[in-house]
């Protein structure tokens, strides 16, 4: 699992020669993994993917596939499957002809091509659609065919650039499950671009968080969520309360209103300013009565309630209250006691 398939070394890309769109990128893709590039719009995800596919050249640095540099190899000889956001199925060919395209280019025997097409259509659950033109398929069906086409020539690596971006939520979730299933079954390495964090968390073995052309953190979904490497990641993935604090000692911080917050041991020097991030769902809602927070607003969301609290000198402290809790939902204006477990506090140096 940890064998390296692709490695980017100090890759920089600039379209205009001045502003780097991807800066000093070092990234290893492991064989067989599902790696997601996640980041806000314009953060360089597509550019990174296109450099790997060979449609863009790095301005500097090198990209290697299985230890061999591929920077100078043209796209059609890289043997990397690509799924595009707009499907890019050839409109003048039927589904079967689209699937046959990479195989006939590789001069596979006719019988083999027919067998593989049948298998591929089976895999994406469209066995009866071989004779249709792409225009006669729904968006979800087209994307399934595009996926099958990128996989049918058995590439080592498949790149997917927001393949589900144009689909509605329900279809996205359905196809996410299918992609995960196919990945597990074929064991093919997938690099997936999205700016949907839920999608990234669902699908990935590892997530690389991009921001302004740099990787902010690359780790398992759990790690990037639970242990964000910097304030950007903490703010980008999931929701979090961000507070500026003073460091008292290795396990205690002072909040703006003077109250103390316990943390796991950290290495910041006492007296310096720091930034903490606290996930709303880790906030423990205690009993009503005199306490350290006032309920400002309650939003009912079915499986949980979202409380906006005045706490530690701020009026926008968010807490989530799961509905299986026996406690009644507090009404706005009531005072409550909240607790913040030490392991729920992530501390970053300020600035």
């Amino acid at each position, binding site marked *: 699992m940890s064998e390296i398939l692709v490695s980017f070394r100090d890759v920089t890309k600039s379209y205009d020669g001045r502003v780097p769109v991807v800066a000093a990128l070092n990234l290893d893709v492991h064989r067989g993994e599902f790696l997601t590039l996640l980041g806000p719009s314009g953060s360089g995800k597509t550019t990174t993917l296109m450099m790997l596919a060979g*449609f863009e050249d790095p301005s500097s640095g090198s990209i290697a596939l299985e230890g061999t540099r591929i920077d100078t190899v043209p796209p059609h000889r890289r043997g990397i499957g*690509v799924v595009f956001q707009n499907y890019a199925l050839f*409109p*003048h060919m039927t589904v079967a002809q689209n699937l046959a*395209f990479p195989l006939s*280019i590789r001069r596979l025997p006719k019988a083999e091509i027919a067998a593989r097409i049948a298998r591929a259509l089976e895999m994406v659950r469209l066995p009866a659609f071989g004779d249709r033109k792409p225009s006669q398929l729904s968006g979800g069906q087209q994307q399934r065919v595009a996926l099958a086409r990128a996989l049918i*020539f058995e590439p080592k690596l498949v790149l997917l650039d927001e393949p589900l971006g144009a689909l509605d939520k329900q279809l996205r979730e359905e196809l996410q499950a299918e992609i995960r299933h196919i990945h597990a079954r074929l064991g093919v390495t997938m690099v997936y671009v999205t700016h949907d964090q839920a999608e990234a968390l669902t699908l990935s073995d590892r997530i690389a968080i991009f921001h302004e052309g740099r990787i902010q953190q690359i780790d398992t979904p759990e790690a990037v969520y639970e242990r964000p490497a910097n304030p950007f990641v903490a703010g980008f993935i999931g929701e979090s309360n961000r507070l500026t604090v003073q460091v008292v000692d290795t396990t205690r911080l002072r909040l703006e209103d003077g109250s103390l917050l316990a943390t796991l041991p950290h290495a910041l020097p006492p007296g310096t300013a720091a930034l903490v991030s606290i996930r709303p769902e880790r906030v423990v809602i205690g009993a009503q009565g005199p306490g350290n927070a006032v309920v400002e607003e309650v939003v009912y969301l079915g499986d949980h309630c979202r409380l906006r609290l005045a706490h530690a000198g701020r009026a926008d402290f968010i807490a989530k209250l799961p509905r299986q809790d026996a406690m009644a939902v507090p009404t706005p204006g009531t005072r409550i006691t909240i607790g913040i477990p030490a392991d729920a506090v992530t501390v970053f140096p300020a600035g």
Partner: protein
Amino acid sequence: MRRTNWLAALLIAPLLLLILGSFLVPVGLTLFRAVQDREVAQALPETSAILAAWDGQGLPPEAAFAAVARELGAALEARRIGDVAQRMNFARTGMRSTLLRTARAAERLRAPYAASLVALDARWGQAETWLLLRSAGGPVTSLYLLRAMDFTQTPDGGVVQAPTDERLYRTLFLRTFGISLLVTAICVLLAYPVAYTIARLRAPWSSIALTLVLIPFWSSVLVRTTAWFVLLQREGPVNGALLGMGLLEAPAQVIGTRIAVVLALVHVLLPFAILPMHSVMTRLDATYLRAAASLGANGMQRFLRVWLPLSLPGVLAGGAMVFLLAVGMYTAPALVGGDRDQMVAWFIANFLNRDVNWGMAAALSAYLLAMTGAIVALARILTGGMVGARG
């Protein structure tokens, strides 16, 4: 719903009437002239009536001779003799002089007319002359449509090849379509790389290049063709340059040849091939090419298997456009071509302007229209199949 439909129809009615009145009706009336036959019936009504009742055996009765002498004389007075002479001479060469001579002599002729007419002109003694007159009685004739395909009708109604020295039009149509096909092929071959290049240019350059393509439209076909005439003539710059470089020993005679016609037509029609191709190609998504590359296709395979088929509707549209315009082209071949390079349009113009033979002009036009119509339909079916597939 229904009310808005009515309103829409009402709003559009003036436009429909305009199109109907200014286009369909005149074209229809003109085309009708290809079969209309009224000159003889108008000028010689009584003769026509007698001949219509005649059984066609031997010579007609004396009454026909008398009527034709009298009515020809009257037609001469009324200055209508020219139309009849023209019409009959077209059916059989030589009839013009017979009719004119008879008309001028009409006053002097005396009964029995059967004898005096034959004495005046031996043709009146031939059954064929009378059969021709009878078949010209109208109201419709297949004469022009047959002749425009090099056929002629025998006096007894059979259809045979026209005499060798009058056969012309089948060759003419073949020549017209041959030149047009050649011009279309050259235009498509030249236009495709141009359209491709323009479609792949970046923002400001693509529109600049497109403007350059359109510049020829700022001047008229006449001006552009005249320019070719100037360029290609014996003392022109092209000959001068070729002589100067020593590539030619004597100035080449290009004007008046098929080459000049093809050259001028290609030049005039090239933009019409580029524009439809360009509009199809700019709408082609470049990710198709990327997808093809990611699937292993090299440059040639990407072009042949993806770009070319996807841009084919543009090629067909451009080709059909050039072909249709070339088939009807008059100015360019008339200016730079020789006698043997003229196309159907030139003959149509000639029949209208010089011979004043509306029947032949209309018959040639009708065939041209039918053939180009068939080609449009063919192009429609070909592109239609493709467009349908693209959805």
